């Protein structure tokens, strides 16, 4: 179950080194299959590596882990997003199933995270900032919840 220790701290709080890099996550129950578990573990290793290799500051890696945890808690079975780490930040996540695009960014320092959602079919799109302490914005949650639903314009089992 969700453990208080794993709740996302306010963005102004200082995260101890390795705070997100410890033992099993309380969100592991959201993993749908052993294959997913491997993918999730590989993604966590990637986030640690981006920090250890100093591609991004440790807090960016930790924020990206927190963003991912929030997303997969919201949608169990959600595939690991495509992640790109830019030197110094951000770590940029993308889910794209052909119809919906969801992008989330973890930036350095006290900067809020950024979000973007789009529906190619309807032409609707939106975006902005969010604080981890407030959870994912409602439009992101709504789009994530639709992401795995069958639809005629693209695959439903992960990134396009």
């Amino acid at each position: 179950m969700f453990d208080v220790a794993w709740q996302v701290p306010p963005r102004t709080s200082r995260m101890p080194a390795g705070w997100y890099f410890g033992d099993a996550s309380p969100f592991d129950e959201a993993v749908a299959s052993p294959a997913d578990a491997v993918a999730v573990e590989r993604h966590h290793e990637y986030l640690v590596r981006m920090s250890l290799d100093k591609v991004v500051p440790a807090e960016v890696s930790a924020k990206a882990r927190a963003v991912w945890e929030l997303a997969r808690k919201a949608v169990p079975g959600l595939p690991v997003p495509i992640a790109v780490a830019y030197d110094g930040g951000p770590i940029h996540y993308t889910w794209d199933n052909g119809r919906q695009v969801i992008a989330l960014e973890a930036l350095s320092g006290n900067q809020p995270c950024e979000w973007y959602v789009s529906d190619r079919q309807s032409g609707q799109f939106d975006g902005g900032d969010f604080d981890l302490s407030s959870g994912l914005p409602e439009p992101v949650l709504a789009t994530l919840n639709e992401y795995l639903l069958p639809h005629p314009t693209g695959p439903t089992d992960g990134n396009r």
Partner: protein
Amino acid sequence: MATGDEQATPISPGSDGTPVPAGTAVIRLGPKPPLKNLNDPGHAKLALGQAWEGLFAFSESERKLASPRLSVWLTALTTPAQAWLLVGANWKNVILVNLRVDQVRIVFAPGTASTPETPRLDVVWEQATTVDSNDPLQRISETRPGCQGHCGIDGLYRGTKAQRGKLRELLTDTVQPGDLVVLTDEQIAQFQAAVTSA
């Protein structure tokens, strides 16, 4: 009436910020972001030759520039081998994306009730620079072969955050099958041979 025998008008670089000719093509060539900065789904996407909007994001340091541009090279003036040398001759980690200037220029983000639509993206000339070997903190004009083809995709960082996301998404949608490749060691070895013999 076109006969097919016409000589193409040579392209000369324009001044910084002016549009490159219509009907041309550009390449975006790594190493930014390097392959090691992608996770497994990113590598899987590249293996399919597909782009995604995160590939066209700016780093935080680039976002501090007044008008960040996405660095690209006009294929009429810069060969892929030259571009490879000019961006650092990285033996690995090289993603090459072909983009058609006319299609890039179609891209804009629609407006909302409170914000106007963005201007269309443009591809503009930009002087290539390189690190000064005498002072690594300084950049000087690039002079090596192929540097004349340097240009930038302008306008990706305009508008609201929602519009910036839309601009990245629509730019990504201009990338057609076959436009994105991860260069093989053999291709890079050919680049090395080409720039060495030139």
